[in-house]
């Protein structure tokens, strides 16, 4: 499967990935409406971790052994054995937040309006996830799993 490669050394922390994630998961799919009129506002499925000068965007890693799926109390979180994508059946999410506690990357967000979780679905149906497509600096790229490069190696190569 394809996964999102994060490259911390070229992330400028602009936050466009969050903006476009919200847009992609909105009702209106209209940038102005989403931020000015749409209620409830969609929750970004990823967040930019920042402590100057370091910044990087992190979203669900879609772990093969997924602690959130194993921890889910209701069976709402499932990993599709064919695509490898971890998704939530939002109808069955009880908002207990146990998955947030179990996730080693802290990438599961709360949608407090709905009282349920919000998580990355790799923009199902889209060829390239919205966060990747709209990253102005290629700090996020969408690559085959076996070409994912660990951050430390990327750093070494950059310096």
């Amino acid at each position, binding site marked *: 499967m394809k996964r999102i490669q994060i490259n911390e050394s070229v992330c400028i922390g602009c936050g466009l990935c969050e903006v476009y994630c919200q847009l992609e998961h909105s009702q209106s799919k209209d940038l102005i409406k989403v931020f000015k009129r749409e209620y409830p506002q969609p929750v970004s499925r990823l967040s930019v971790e920042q402590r100057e000068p370091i910044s990087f965007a992190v979203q669900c890693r879609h772990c093969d052994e997924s602690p959130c799926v*194993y*921890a889910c109390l*209701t*069976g709402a979180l499932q990993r599709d054995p064919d695509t490898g994508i971890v998704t939530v059946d939002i109808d*069955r999410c*009880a908002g*207990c*937040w*146990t998955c*947030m506690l179990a996730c080693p990357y802290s990438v599961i967000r709360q949608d407090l309006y709905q009282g349920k979780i919000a998580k990355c679905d790799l923009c199902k149906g889209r060829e390239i996830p919205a966060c990747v497509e709209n990253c102005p600096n290629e700090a996020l790229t969408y690559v085959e799993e076996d070409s994912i490069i660990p951050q430390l190696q990327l750093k070494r190569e950059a310096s």
Partner: protein
Amino acid sequence: MKNATKVKYLLIGNSAGGIGAAEAIREVDKTGTILIISDESYPVYSRPLIAKYLAEGYPLEKMLYRPTDFYPKNNIQTRLGNKVTHLDIANHTVRLEDGQEIQWQKLLLATGGSPIIPRVDGITKKGVFPFITLDDAKAIDQFVSNQTKAVIIGGGLIGTSLTAALVEQGVEVTVVEMKEHILNAILDDEMSVIAEATLIQNGVKVITGHTVTKINSRSKGDDTVSQVTLNDGTRIPCDMVAMAIGVRPRSELVSGTGVTTNRGIVVDRYMTTSNPDVYASGDVAEAYDLVYQENRLTPIWPNAYLGGRIAGLNMAGRITEYPGGTSMNAMNYFGLNIVSAGILIPADDSYEVLSQRSGFNYV
């Protein structure tokens, strides 16, 4: 033994542990026979959701942990509503309540826990309930009305979630906790106080540092609950009493079989008991705790599923080590969100405690 049904994998318990094992076995072994036995008659449901069922009538179909076609789709046989009464390890067989014999090659004990019955005079009276299973929740649901007064013995996770559910139904609830604070096993003192304050704000009476010593009826010969007496003699009128002081491992099946038990059935890092063909997971098992770095009971759903999964992989021949679990809980009562994990109250001064509080946010 001629008439015994033969199966490759026998899983006793149809909750998180049993399902975790069944799913893992099917990842490795597509054809080996799997049989799940449970004394509950429901397909696997989310046990933690029984509080939501009681609170708001959460629909049963949404409580199902797996889709309705889960068992046939994965070629899993079931005997639900049937209890295992005898385990013979030497012959690799079990006997069920209805007399059937089943021969197995690999066995998982995921029998869970049963409510600890406090030693209280009158505990068998009508109106005294445990709160562990869906049937318990249904029984309470039928019993209560918005006129009911309830006393809950035990201010732990079960007691608190039951309290929140009953309050939703308009029940007047008093929680009696033996220790100084409610939720004392999973929260530190400061956080317990916040949790207590939240209950009190929502009309719950919280009595800590006390125990219930007697459950009374109105008159002799009457078997229904009318009040409880506390250890200091205080009497609290009520129609209902809930036992919520915790669960104890349901390990009766292995007693006398030579399988090692301590507080629960002891398993190694492969979820194997002292017998190489017998595995255990979930509330019944005493498995590795990665924070304490020793075997402990950690009766929570995620550990049951993961332990069951590891057991299943090993049963099917894919040797996999259990990374360990620890106590970890997420709670959500009356709009107060709490998560807790690991050691909350340090054993000695060698731990550094970091905490921060601003208003109602406490880390």
